[in-house]
């Protein structure tokens, strides 16, 4: 069964090809959805089978499936001698990719199903499902790739699909802009990621995970030696990889694309911009944990960036009026959590949160999508309200998701968030208490904005237009079923990792253990050094904060947005800062984007002006000019000489008034002059 691993990405690919190329433009929605859901469902089933098979083998040894040699560009001189560089394409099954595989296929399938209902009647139905399937393929390659190169194929593939689906409504200028922005911001991250890969390849002559891990283990000290820019090689690589991760996972400084990415259809936001793709950065960091462990300074950077992003994004989410934007910032914030964990060395906690987050965030998005769908595309929270009665399933599942993300016991978020906060508290990183405090504050903010959104959307009275109100109806089963399933996941997913403090076994952490390298590192102590009692104390504290925040939010927003707005007026500066997202977009636009464009225009003008016209045409003009000159020589210079002499003589004698010329005489003069010059030159030489 494991040997069929290659079929897992292939099935959705076939689905995409079938939908994209074969079925033709007149294929019914039914055909298309059968192909798309069938292939993704089959992939999910097969994935489960493969996972089961892998788990049953009982061995933690990764299962590698090398498919073909991708690039073999010859001998590369590396630090360990010339290496015949061979970059393979293959798949790898280890605990980390098992988790990711499950999350991706499972969530992916339900979102496929959901989309059938959500997208019904849209003009780009077939295109949509083609993209969705392609995305699944790319994401599977990303998480299953057996080396950085294969992973990068998926990495860029998901970026591309993200570009395509964000720009799905391509006739809207804003959607197209958002797609491009996402792609280019991601490219900036990829740029750094590639640099990291090249450094690795240049050092070890390979990019396969298996080989790299053995090389890294063998040459830990060499990796810590100074390399460039005051960094060690490990530090350089880690920095590059992390920068790549910030691009994909929307962390500071490259998070700006994600809110705009909400221009795509909502299920896509759920799948790509919440549950799966954006977590690729976390996956990358965890996958490269051996290198990060060798670069504690970069690990600390990861943690701080994660914490800062978490706090900042949560702050932005507080004031958003667009439901999807709230969720988008929430996603950024939660991803910040994951990076916080990863930076602190709590890799399994990061992945744990990644998995639980996938469920509840997908759930939240899908539920939000159902609301938006019902409201005919309305996304503004201020025009919702009172939907609790009209859309009971949606409201309840959304509530489950909100509780989960708020970290209320025993929902999934509680367990994973707790793992991260415990890690922060226990961490040896300097300033870890600050990190903990930020984490706690963010948890409170999360609960607040989530229930603010909940209250505005579902409680109070309906504030939208009357004619819409009459048509409110619950979503079809294709949408409701995924909501229900994911809600179940949002409740139960956390139970896989109940910590020992609460009598669990932290099965999740144990399972991931083989993936976490044991690189001897004095600065990163082992996780979970807290006593069980302290851990329980921290849990309680977090839960209390969350509960207070929830109550506060419900109190303020139960009746509508007015009270909230009144409070905002009291803090105009802060509110403006948050509403305008700290003007980061504007700053980027003014500096980097416009700077580049101006530079481009400048260079182009320089090219047309200086290089082309200046140098080349200048030379051309010089040639023409000198030709004109030499053309004139026969006509004018000799005459000019004569004129000059005439002018000269005019000063001496008025008698020479009649100035005339004869061409032959001039020629003869020049001829004799030339001969004379020859003679003179000779006389000088000798």
């Amino acid at each position, binding site marked *: 069964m494991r040997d069929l691993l290659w079929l897992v990405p292939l099935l959705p690919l076939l689905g995409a090809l079938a939908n994209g190329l074969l079925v033709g433009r007149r294929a019914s929605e039914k055909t298309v959805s059968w192909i798309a859901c069938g292939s993704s469902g089959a992939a999910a089933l097969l994935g489960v089978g493969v996972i089961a098979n892998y788990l049953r083998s009982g061995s933690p040894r990764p299962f590698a499936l090398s498919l073909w040699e991708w690039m073999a560009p010859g001998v*590369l001189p590396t630090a360990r001698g010339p290496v*015949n*560089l061979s970059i393979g394409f293959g798949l790898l099954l280890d605990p980390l990719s098992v988790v990711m595989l499950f999350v991706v296929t499972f969530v992916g399938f339900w979102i496929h199903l959901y989309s059938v209902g959500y997208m019904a009647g849209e003009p780009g139905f077939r295109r949509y499902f083609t993209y969705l399937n392609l995305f699944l393929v790319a994401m599977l390659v990303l998480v299953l790739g057996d080396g950085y190169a294969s992973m990068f194929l998926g990495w860029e593939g998901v970026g591309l699909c993200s570009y395509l689906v964000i720009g799905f409504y391509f006739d809207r200028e804003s959607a197209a802009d958002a797609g491009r922005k996402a*792609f280019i911001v991601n490219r900036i991250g990829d740029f750094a990621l590639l640099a990291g890969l090249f450094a690795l390849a240049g050092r070890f002559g390979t990019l396969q995970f298996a080989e790299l891990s053995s090389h890294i283990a063998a040459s830990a000290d060499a990796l810590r030696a100074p390399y460039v820019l005051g960094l060690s090689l490990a530090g350089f690589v880690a920095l590059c990889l992390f920068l790549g991760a910030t691009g994909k996972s929307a962390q500071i400084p490259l998070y700006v694309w994600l809110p705009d990415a909400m221009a795509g259809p909502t299920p896509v936001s759920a799948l790509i911009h919440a549950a799966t793709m954006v977590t690729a950065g976390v996956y990358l960091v965890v996958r490269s944990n051996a290198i990060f462990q060798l670069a504690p300074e970069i690990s600390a950077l990861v943690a701080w960036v994660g914490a800062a992003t978490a706090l900042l994004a949560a702050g932005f989410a507080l004031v958003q009026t667009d439901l999807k934007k709230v969720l988008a910032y929430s996603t950024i914030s939660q991803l910040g959590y994951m990076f916080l964990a990863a930076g602190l060395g709590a890799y399994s906690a990061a992945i744990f949160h990644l998995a639980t987050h996938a469920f509840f965030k997908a759930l939240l998005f899908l539920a939000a999508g159902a609301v938006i769908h019902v409201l005919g595309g309305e996304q503004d929270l201020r025009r919702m309200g009172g939907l609790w009665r009209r859309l009971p399933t949606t409201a309840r599942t959304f509530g489950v998701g909100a509780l989960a993300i708020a970290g209320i016991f025993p929902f999934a978020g509680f367990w994973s968030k707790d793992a991260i906060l415990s890690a922060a508290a226990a961490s040896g990183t300097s300033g870890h208490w600050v990190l903990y405090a930020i984490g706690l504050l963010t948890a409170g903010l999360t609960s607040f904005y989530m229930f603010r959104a909940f209250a505005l959307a579902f409680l109070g009275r309906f504030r939208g237009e009357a004619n819409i109100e009459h048509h409110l109806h619950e979503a079809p089963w294709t949408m409701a079923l995924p909501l229900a399933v994911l809600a179940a996941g949002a409740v139960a997913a956390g139970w896989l990792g109940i910590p020992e403090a609460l009598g669990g076994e932290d099965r999740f952490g144990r399972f991931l253990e083989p993936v976490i390298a044991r690189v001897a590192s004095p600065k990163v102590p082992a996780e979970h050094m807290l006593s069980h009692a302290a851990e329980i104390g921290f849990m309680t504290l977090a839960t209390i904060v969350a509960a207070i925040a929830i109550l506060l939010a419900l109190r303020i927003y139960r009746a509508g947005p007015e009270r909230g707005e009144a409070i905002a007026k009291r803090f105009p500066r802060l509110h403006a800062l948050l509403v305008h997202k700290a003007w980061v977009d504007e700053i980027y636009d003014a500096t980097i984007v416009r700077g580049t464009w101006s530079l481009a225009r400048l260079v182009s003008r320089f090219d047309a002006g200086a290089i082309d016209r200046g140098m080349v045409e200048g030379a051309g003009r010089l040639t023409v000019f000198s030709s004109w000159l030499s053309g004139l020589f026969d006509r004018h210079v000799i005459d000019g000489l004569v004129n000059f002499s005439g002018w000269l003589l005019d000063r001496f004698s008025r008698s020479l008034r009649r100035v005339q010329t004869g061409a032959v005489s001039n020629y003869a003069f020049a001829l004799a002059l030339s001969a004379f010059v020859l003679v003179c030159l000779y006389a000088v030489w000798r």
Partner: protein
Amino acid sequence: MFDWVHGVPILSLICFLPLVGALVVIFALRDPATIRRFAFGVALVDFLLSVPLWFAFDRGGELFQFKEGADWIPSIGVRYELGIDGIALLLVLLTTLLGALAFLSSWSAIREREKEYYTFLLLLQTGMLGVFCALDFFLFYVFWEVMLVPMYFLIGIWGGPRRLYASIKFFLYTLVGSVLMLLGLLALYFWNGRGLFGWTGAGNPLSFSIEQFHRIGPSIPADLQLWIFLALFVGFAIKVPMFPFHTWLPDAHVEAPTAGSVILAGILLKMGTYGFVRFSLPILPDATRRLVPWMIGLSIIAILYGALCAMAQRDMKKLVAYSSVSHLGFVTLGIFALNGPGLSGGVLQMINHGLSTGALFLLIGVLYERRHTRLIADYGGLSAVMPRYATIFLIITLASIGVPALNGFVGEFTILIGAFAQSWAWAIAAMLGIVLGAAYMLWMFQRVFFGPVGHEENRKLPDLNRRELVYLLPIVLLCFWIGLYPKPFFRILEKPVAYLVERVAVPATEGR
């Protein structure tokens, strides 16, 4: 199955079949439709003739294969000598393929003076193939120059409004470059013989043989090497074109008819980089090593400069033209990284650029034929009107900006690995070009294909027809092939690249 090619002068056949075709077109054919079909037929047969080379080429065998030779001008040692190594093989295949596709693309685009058009196109084909097949430097030079004339006419007669300016600029530029290259060639020639002014030569019988030059090259004194390198460099750099010799390119590209642009971008530019790997590197290793920082510097400038210029363009063809400057900067970067990945990536990127930029020009040509404008601003929302066209354009765009699974990535990736192994700073500087590449290509794509359909004229544009699909799909398939399974290409490059590396090898550095 393809062993028979060893028994026939296959390279001569491939090279001169278009010439014969051109003669037939001149003297025997009259009807434009017949000429069209016939010319395409010739190009197609030429391509089919070149395909067996791929199979019959012995990957592990001699460096140069399918060799043919005959005396040409015995008194000065000029021989008619053909032969190809892996690098040339790929370029020959690219030439025959793109040539055939370019012919097909001209069917409806060119509707006047077809006889001359196809004659020139066929002559051009012969010239380009000769350049890649020649094993005698003089023969190489002759083909190199011969090709200028038909290209000049293609731009000058069937080009856009500023065609006169563009054609003469193209011609002058390349002519200046090639005549300077000639001086370098002559210096090599004399050094191989009795020597020239200050330098005593190797005393060999007079010869222009490239293999002979390869043999004697490393023993040329370093200062003479430097001069020869610089002379050859000007010729090659103008053709590539490297900054700051590139300004002929945008004009020539913009004004040339579609097929001309395709061939110009797809094949002609490769002759410059081919010149580097065939002559500069193996014959003048000392000078090459000495000038590597300069070459890399120019490459990086070209990458960034070309990309920035491309960003500011409003004309699609001009944009693609500047992108060529940028992409060829990658090629030269890889070549002058002087290691395996750099070189094989560089050569592969030559092919990739030929395919993707060729396809881009074909695509722009399709649009131009329908709307007679190339300004980006005249389009918008075409995705809805021409979905098939948009899809192919997207794929090619992605190939061009180096998205994995497509060909551009493989080339750039390997080039950058090679460059990084030489110096991390070079690679990082060059990689900025990738980011910019995505920016301008996607900007163009968005402006043309996304958004509402802004112009009424664009509402009724027909999607790709069957003929257009026929000449675009092969390129798309090749893009995927090279993107996903480039191993056969690397395999064929293995030996020549190893040979080059051995010639110019620099001692391994500490991975910087």
